[in-house]
């Protein structure tokens, strides 16, 4: 049954995903067109005049729009998944979902899994958009074509990888551990963030009135707990440190921050998942 739930969750979300990716492509195009304005071309013969001023203003506006929409894309996927979770779990569509012969764990896992995949995909989309944007910016400033810049970048990257593979025996284990930690932290961020949002929506259901408002306040509460948790742990580290300000202290500070972030994400995600499960199996009260 889990496979079927995942299949339908994917089927019911992919159209919104395609719309988001199309929007992302459009936004990237707008961002890249920004650099066609004269202000980016140092040797342009047309540096004065109202039309040039207007083009430059449009360029700046497009640049701001690009940044705004890129941040919007990251937020919109989270908002979409949260609203969909509420709609399918706790509004009239919940009447169908909760009468299916499936367990609450299967429902939650399917939603978290598919939602996390979408967040990863959007993060990847944003990453590639920034790469394209970056190449276009360098191309506008240097006068080189985007393709030759990309070729140069790929060459440099392959050389770096070759060097790193030659160094692997002598590489400091601490560096590898840090990279692994960063990657795990990054990968866990999507499902953990989503579970916290789902947890907040579910906590809102514990109230007989104003459930959406209560869900919002619950999320504020979770965010506060998250902040207090990391602040308290970092405070303990800071106060306990004897070599304050030294290079070792700086490394230890970042390492501790990383570990705290990882622990914080895992602990809060587990707690929010348990809250979701408990509310759905013991406290479900569809209006």
């Amino acid at each position, binding site marked *: 049954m889990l496979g079927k739930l995942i299949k339908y969750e994917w089927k019911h979300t992919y159209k919104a995903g395609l719309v988001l990716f199309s929007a992302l492509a459009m936004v990237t195009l707008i961002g890249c067109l920004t650099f066609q304005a004269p202000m980016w071309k140092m040797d342009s013969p047309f540096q004065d005049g109202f039309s040039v001023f207007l083009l430059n203003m449009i360029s700046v506006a497009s640049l701001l729009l690009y940044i705004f929409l890129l941040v919007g894309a990251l937020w919109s996927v989270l908002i979409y998944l949260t609203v969909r979770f509420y709609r399918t779990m706790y509004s009239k569509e919940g009447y169908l979902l*909760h*009468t*299916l*012969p499936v367990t609450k764990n299967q429902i939650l896992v399917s939603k978290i899994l598919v939602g996390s995949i979408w967040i990863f995909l959007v993060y990847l989309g944003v990453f590639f958009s920034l790469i394209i944007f970056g190449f276009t910016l360098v191309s506008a400033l240097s006068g080189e074509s985007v393709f030759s810049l990309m070729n140069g970048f790929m060459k440099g990257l392959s050389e770096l990888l070759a060097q790193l593979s030659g160094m692997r025996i002598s590489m400091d284990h601490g560096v590898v551990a840090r990279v692994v930690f960063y990657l795990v932290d990054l990968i866990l961020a999507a499902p953990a963030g989503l579970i916290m949002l789902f947890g907040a929506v579910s906590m809102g259901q514990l109230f007989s009135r104003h459930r959406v408002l209560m869900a919002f306040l619950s999320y504020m509460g979770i965010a506060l707990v998250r902040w207090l948790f990391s602040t308290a742990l970092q405070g303990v580290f800071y106060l306990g440190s004897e070599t304050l300000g030294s290079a070792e202290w700086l490394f230890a500070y970042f390492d501790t921050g990383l570990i705290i972030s990882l622990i914080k994400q895992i602990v809060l995600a587990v707690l929010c998942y348990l809250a979701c499960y408990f509310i759905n199996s013991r406290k*479900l009260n*569809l209006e």
Partner: protein
Amino acid sequence: MEDLIAIKNLTKAYDSRHVAVNDITLTLPRGRIIGLLGPNGSGKTTLIKLINGLLTPDSGSILINGEPVGTKTKAHVAYLPDRTYLAGNRKINECLDFFGDFYADFSREKACEMLSGLKIDPAARMQTLSKGNREKVQLILVMSRNADLYVLDEPIAGVDPAARDYILRTIINNYNPGATVLISTHLIGDIEQVLDEVIFMRYGRLVLYTSVDNIREQHGKSVDAYFREVFAC
């Protein structure tokens, strides 16, 4: 034979002043069409939601086929809520696929036959259908299951008399004869002729559970007339 539903001391309150279902104890047999009757706010929908696991009881228990409400019971209960629970942008075909995937007792053939009888295009999206047709599609999906228990919450409310006749015919012609059909309504006159038994509820309490024949024999009245007498304002 074991009772199909065994409800014991069931209570559900939305808040301290509003007890929707108040200490109900009831057993329902197999193979009956039972009317769940009562004025608005009597607790009919709450009881139905509790049977389907959409609400959590404050106290008491419900057993269906000897099992507490959960994954196992949901595989054998076909539920028609008092609202449209299918998303508007879904095509009917997609809904058929969905029911076929999740309910082992769903007959796609039967559903397609009923849709074709109503000349409803399975490629149509739910949001393009009239309210009456949306309700009919939901009913067709529910009645195309070979369930042990059909729970229908206000299936004839808000539709025209012709649609009511169609809905009642669909229920009578398509339910599994070994199963029980629990129909909640306050339109008793329209449904009376199909009922074997009735449950009267008021203020969340069970007022009466008896057979339709019993009401006619003992009180010399139709269920509708007797209901009006019992619930006279």
